[in-house]
C-alpha cells in the first residue's frame, strides 16, 4: 500500500542520539578464533565417534577438520571477501561429492540413521565420506554464526551435552569437555566490544576447566548418591502424578521392557481369594511375551499355534475346543491321575478393584471355573508341589482323552519349539557373544549358567536409572548398568534360554507370597494385590507341567533364591522331557534347523514369506527410513526457523514503520470486515466515514491519529513521539473494535492472514 511507505530516514530524525560504529573496530585474533573453532569441531567429531555404531577413519577426518577450520577461520577474520568465495567453493565440492558418490553417501546416511535410532550393526560400517562431506559445511557456517550471535554456541552445545547419555555416548567425556570449552570461548569472544576479548575468553575457558576439575572431584565419588537423589525427586513426582491421574490403580502392563525406574504407589489393584492357604508363592500370569524386538516383547499368540494344529490334525477336540483343552490340559491330567496324594484342587477368585477387564490373570496349572463372579472370575488350580501327573495311571475311560492330550502336547511343543526360541541375534551382539560357544548337557546346567551370569553381572534395584532410548535395555542391563529389576532379569533370562534353544517366554503378572493372604471369616484367604506384587518372570516348557514359571529375580536383600522349576534341585535326575523328546539344543541354536516333520511343511512356506518380508523391510530401512527420519527432524526445524525469521522481520518492520504499520493493519481490518473497501486513508472524507463505521470510537481521536499517520507518510518531518504513540494506540483500539464486530470465521481468517 503506497500510503504506508517505509521512510528510511525516520529513525534518524526521531532519535537524536545514536551509537557510532567503531572506526577501527578490532577484529578477533584469528589464531584464537581458530583454536576455539577447532575445539568445537574436534569436540563434535569425538562426540560423534563415541555414539555406538558410528565409525569413521580418524586420521583423514581429523586432518581435514584442522585444514578446513584453519582456512575458514583465517579467511573469515582476515579476508572476508575470500571467505565467501571459499564457502561457495566448499559448497560446490560437497555438492559434487553428493552427486558422484550418492550411492555411498546414501548408504552411509542409512548406517548413521540406524546407529542414531538405536539399531547399531555388530560391526559398524564406516561413515567417513559422510563426515568428510559435512566438515567444510560446518567449518564455513560456524565462524559467521558465532561472530554474529555469540550466545548461539552455548545454546547449540547444551542439547548436545544433554543428549549424550540418550545417544549412549558413554565415552564422550573428552568430547563434551571440548564442546563446552569451545562454547564458552565463543560466548566470551562474541562480545561486540573490543575490551580484551581474547584474554577474557581464554580466562573464561581456563575458569571453566578449573570448575569442571573441582566438580569432578566432588561428583565422581558420589554418582550413585546423586543418582538416588534424582530418583527420590523423580519418584515423588511420579507418585504425585500417578495419584492425581488415577494411574496408580492401573495393573501390570504389556511387554515393554522398562527403560526407567520403577516407583511403587502402594495402591491396591486386585483382590485374590483362595480356599486353601498356599504352600508356595502363587504366580498369576497376565501378559506372555512371544517375539522380542527393540526392547519390547510382543504378545505370544498361542491361539494361532493351536489353530494350525487343529487344521493339520482335524481331530475332534470335543465341546471345549482345542484352545480350552490345551489351556487346562495339565490341570485335567493331574486331576485324572490316580494318586491319593494329590489333593483336591483349590479354588481362586480374582476380582478387579478399579480398571476392570484390562488384563486377564491366570494361575498356573489351572482351569477356568466361572467367569464374572463378583466383578472377576474363578479358577480351580493346583500348586506346583501338587502336580504329580502320571500319564500311564489314569482311569481307563480317560485313556482316549489322555492320548489326545499327549498328541496335543507333542504337536504344541513342536510348534512352540521354533517360535519361542527366536532371538533377534543381530540386535543383541553382546548377548550372543556371551552365550556363543557354551555347551551344556542339561537344562539344569543352562539354568545354572543363566543364574550365575545374572548374579555375577547384576544387582537388583527398583531404581537402576534410565537406559538409552536407542539401546537395548536387556544388553544395557547385563553389560553396562548391571542394575535392574524383575522385567530386566526375566527378559535377560528368557533371551538366554532361547539362545540355548530352550523354549522360554517372558511373563508379567502378579506374584503372591503366602504371607500376603489373610484368613477370612468363612475360612477363605484373601490377598489385596498392590503394585509391589506386580512381577515379571520367565517360563519354560516342561513335559509334565507345561509352561512353568522360573523366577530369576533375586530378592532385594539377598542372592538369587527365585522359584526354580521342578527337578532343578536334582540335576542328575533332570529329565524334564520324560517320554517325549523335547529336542532341546544344548548348544547355541542354528537357525533353519527344523524340529519335526509337522513343522517342515509350514516352515517352508512361512520361511519364504518371511524372507520376502525381511527383504522388503530391509529395503524400507535402507531407503525410506533415513529420508523420513531426516524429514521428521529437518522439516519442523526449518519451519520453526522460518517462522522465527518471519516474525522477527515482521516485528522489526512494524517497529520501524511506527504508526503507519498500525494504520495499515487498521485498513486491512476494515477490508476484512467488508467496511470502507477501497479506502486508503488519503481521502478527505476518510475520518468521517471511519467515525461512522466505528460509532464507539472518539471521532476527534481518530482525526488526530489519521493526521499523525499522514504526517508520518507525507510530512517533511515525522510526527512527534506523542502523536506517533497516540496514533498507534488509537489504531489498535479501532482494530480491536472491528475484530469484535467480525463473525468468528472472518476473525480467524483475518488473524491467520495477519500472521503471514
Amino acid at each position, binding site marked *: 500500500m503506497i500510503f504506508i511507505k517505509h521512510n528510511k530516514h525516520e529513525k*534518524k530524525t*526521531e*532519535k*537524536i*542520539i*545514536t*551509537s*557510532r560504529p*567503531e572506526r577501527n573496530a578490532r577484529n578477533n585474533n584469528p589464531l584464537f578464533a581458530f583454536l576455539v573453532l577447532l575445539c568445537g569441531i574436534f569436540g563434535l567429531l569425538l562426540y560423534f565417534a563415541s555414539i555406538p555404531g558410528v565409525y569413521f577413519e580418524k586420521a583423514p577426518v581429523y586432518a581435514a577438520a584442522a585444514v578446513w577450520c584453519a582456512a575458514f577461520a583465517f579467511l573469515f577474520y582476515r579476508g572476508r571477501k575470500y571467505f565467501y568465495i571459499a564457502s561457495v567453493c566448499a559448497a560446490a565440492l560437497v555438492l559434487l561429492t553428493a552427486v558422484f558418490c550418492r550411492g555411498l553417501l546414501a548408504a552411509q546416511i542409512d548406517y548413521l540413521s540406524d546407529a542414531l535410532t538405536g539399531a547399531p550393526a555388530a560391526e559398524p560400517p564406516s561413515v567417513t565420506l559422510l563426515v568428510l562431506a559435512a566438515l567444510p559445511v560446518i567449518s564455513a557456517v560456524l565462524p559467521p554464526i558465532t561472530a554474529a550471535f555469540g*550466545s548461539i554456541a552455548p545454546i547449540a552445545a*547444551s542439547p548436545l*551435552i*544433554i543428549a*549424550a*547419555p*540418550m545417544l549412549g555416548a*558413554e565415552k*564422550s*567425556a573428552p568430547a*563434551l569437555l571440548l564442546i563446552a570449552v569451545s562454547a*564458552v570461548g565463543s*560466548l*566470551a569472544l562474541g*562480545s561486540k*566490544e*573490543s*575490551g*580484551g*576479548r581474547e*584474554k*577474557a*575468553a581464554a*580466562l*573464561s575457558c581456563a*575458569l*571453566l576447566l578449573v*570448575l*569442571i576439575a*573441582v*566438580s*569432578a572431584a*566432588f*561428583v*565422581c565419588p558420589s*554418582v*550413585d548418591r*546423586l*543418582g*538416588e*537423589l*534424582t*530418583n527420590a525427586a*523423580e519418584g515423588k513426582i511420579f507418585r504425585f502424578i500417578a495419584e492425581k491421574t488415577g494411574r496408580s490403580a492401573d495393573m501390570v502392563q504389556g511387554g515393554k521392557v522398562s527403560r*526407567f*525406574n520403577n516407583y511403587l504407589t502402594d495402591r491396591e489393584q486386585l483382590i485374590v481369594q483362595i480356599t486353601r492357604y498356599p504352600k508356595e508363592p502363587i504366580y498369576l500370569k497376565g501378559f506372555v511375551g512371544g517375539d522380542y524386538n527393540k526392547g519390547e516383547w510382543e504378545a505370544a499368540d498361542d491361539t494361532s499355534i493351536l489353530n494350525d494344529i487343529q487344521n493339520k490334525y482335524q481331530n475332534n477336540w470335543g465341546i471345549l475346543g482345542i484352545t480350552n483343552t490345551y489351556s487346562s490340559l495339565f490341570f485335567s491330567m493331574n486331576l485324572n491321575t490316580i494318586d491319593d496324594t494329590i489333593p483336591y484342587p483349590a479354588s481362586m477368585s480374582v476380582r478387579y478393584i478399579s480398571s476392570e477387564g484390562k488384563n486377564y490373570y491366570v494361575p498356573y496349572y489351572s482351569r477356568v471355573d466361572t467367569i464374572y463372579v463378583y466383578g472377576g472370575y474363578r479358577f480351580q488350580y493346583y500348586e506346583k508341589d501338587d502336580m504329580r501327573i502320571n500319564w500311564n495311571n489314569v482311569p481307563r475311560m480317560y485313556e482316549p482323552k489322555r492320548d489326545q492330550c499327549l498328541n496335543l502336547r507333542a504337536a504344541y511343543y513342536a510348534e512352540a519349539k521354533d517360535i519361542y526360541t527366536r532371538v533377534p541375534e543381530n540386535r543383541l551382539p553382546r548377548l550372543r557373544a556371551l552365550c556363543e560357544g557354551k555347551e551344556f548337557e542339561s537344562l539344569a546346567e543352562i539354568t545354572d549358567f543363566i543364574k550365575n551370569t545374572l548374579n555375577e553381572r547384576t544387582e537388583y534395584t527398583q531404581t537402576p*536409572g*534410565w*537406559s538409552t532410548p536407542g539401546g537395548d535395555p536387556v544388553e544395557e542391563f547385563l553389560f553396562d*548398568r548391571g542394575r535392574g529389576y524383575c522385567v530386566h532379569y526375566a527378559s535377560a533370562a528368557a533371551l538366554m534360554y532361547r539362545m540355548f534353544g530352550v523354549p522360554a517366554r517372558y511373563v508379567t503378572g502378579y506374584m503372591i507370597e503366602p504371607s500376603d493372604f489373610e484368613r477370612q471369616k468363612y475360612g477363605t484367604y484373601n490377598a489385596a494385590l498392590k503394585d509391589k506384587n506386580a512381577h515379571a518372570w520367565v517360563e519354560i516348557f516342561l513335559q509334565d507341567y507345561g509352561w512353568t514359571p522360573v523366577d530369576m529375580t533375586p530378592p532385594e536383600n539377598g542372592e538369587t533364591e527365585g522359584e526354580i522349576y521342578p527337578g532343578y534341585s536334582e540335576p542328575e535326575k533332570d529329565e524334564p522331557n520324560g517320554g517325549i523328546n523335547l529336542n532341546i539344543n544344548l548348544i547355541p541354536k542354528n537357525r533353519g534347523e527344523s524340529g519335526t516333520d509337522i513343522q517342515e511343511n509350514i516352515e517352508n512356506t512361512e520361511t519364504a514369506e518371511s524372507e520376502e518380508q525381511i527383504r522388503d523391510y530391509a529395503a524400507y530401512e535402507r531407503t525410506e527410513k533415513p529420508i523420513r527420519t531426516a524429514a521428521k527432524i529437518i522439516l519442523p526445524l526449518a519451519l520453526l526457523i522460518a517462522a522465527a525469521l518471519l516474525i522477527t522481520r515482521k516485528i522489526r518492520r512494524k517497529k520501524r514503520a511506527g504508526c503507519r504499520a498500525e494504520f495499515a493493519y487498521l485498513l486491512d481490518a476494515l477490508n476484512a470486515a467488508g467496511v470502507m473497501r477501497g479506502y486508503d486513508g488519503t481521502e478527505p472524507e476518510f475520518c468521517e466515514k471511519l467515525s461512522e463505521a466505528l460509532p464507539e470510537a472518539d471521532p476527534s481521536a481518530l482525526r488526530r491519529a489519521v493526521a499523525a499517520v499522514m504526517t508520518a507518510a507525507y510530512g517533511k518531518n515525522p510526527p512527534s*513521539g506523542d502523536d506517533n504513540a497516540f496514533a498507534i494506540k488509537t489504531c489498535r483500539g479501532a482494530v480491536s473494535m472491528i475484530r469484535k464486530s467480525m463473525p468468528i470465521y472472518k476473525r480467524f481468517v483475518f488473524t491467520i492472514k495477519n500472521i503471514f
Partner: protein
Amino acid sequence: MKKILLVLFAAAAFYLGGAYRFTPLLVFAAAVVLLLPVMFILSRVLRKKTDVRFARPEYSAEKGSEAVVSVICENGGKLPVTRCRADISAAYPNSKPSKIKFQIGADANSEQTKEIEIKAPCCGLIELKIEKLNVCDWLNIFAAPKKCGAVCHAAVYPKEQEFDLSLAPSQGMSGFAERPGLRGGSDTEIKSLREYEHGDSARLIHRNLSARTGELWVKELEKQADFIAELYLDMSGADNAEPQKISLFYEVLSALTAGLLKNAAAVRLFYKSGEERRLTARSRGDIRAALLELYKTDPKSFGAAEAPSGGITLGLDCILSRDGKPIKKFRSKDFDAENGVLEI
C-alpha cells in the same frame, strides 16, 4: 535470560545425569552451578575498577549537523572488562530525553574510547547523561550496577547566517549608543576593497569598480570604536517553550546579532535572568559565547529586559519590536526567505 537458561541447563543435566548415572553430565551440572556464583563475584570485582565517563564536559555542533561525543571506559584493574552497559540519555530542556543503550569494554589497565553521535535538530543545549551503568562478567551472565552520574553538554548553535540590515539614519535605532549614518557612501570611511563573497550586502558593492573590472567588488567600511548596538531580549516563558520555538529564537538572535555586527563594533544584548544582565558580542565567536551563556541560564529565571524608549526588543516569539510595536515577525518556514534586506 542467560541465567535462567543456565539454571535450566544445570537442572536438566543434573536430572538426566542422575537418571542415566552419566558422570560427565553430573560434572557439567555441578560446574555450571559453581560457574554462576563465580561469574556473579567476577562482575562485582570488575565493577570496582571500572568507570565510564565522557571524554570532555562540553561539545558543540551546528544545527542540523552531528556532534560526535566520545565515551571512555576506564579499567584500572588487572582483568579485562568485556562489556559495560550504559544507558545514556540526551535531552533539550523541556523535552523528553532520547535514550540509547551503549556498550563498551576495556582491556586490563587501559582505556577504551567509543563514540556516540548527537543529531542536533534544534539550537540549544543538549544534556547528555549516563543514567545507568552495569558492568558485566565475561560471559555476560550477571551485570553489576554501578553509580555513575557522568554528564556532558552539547551546545547546538545556529548556522552562521546574518540579516542584511538596513538602518535608516532618519529613524536610526534608539538603542544605539551613537548614531552615525549607516548607509555607507562618502560619510563612511572605506577601509578596504575585496572580492564579493556570498552573503555580502548588495549595498556595499562598489559599483564603479565592479563595472570597470567586470567582477564584483565590495567595500569594507571602517567601524567606529564607539559604535555599539543594543538589543533587548524578552525571554519570559522560556521554561515552558518547546525546543523548536526556542531554537528559532536563538537562530533569529544569532542572525540579527551577526547582522548588527556588520554595522557596529559591538552588540550589547540585554536580558533578564533574575536581574538585568548584559552580554557583549564583538565578533562571531562572541555571539556563540553569548548564546552559550543564554543556553546555560536556567530557563525558569528568564524574564523580559526593560528596553528604553525607542529600544529594539526581540521576544521569544521571534517578534522584533520597538516601543511595544512589532517591526517584524520571524517564522521558521520562511526564515531563509527573510534573510534579505531587513529594514529597521
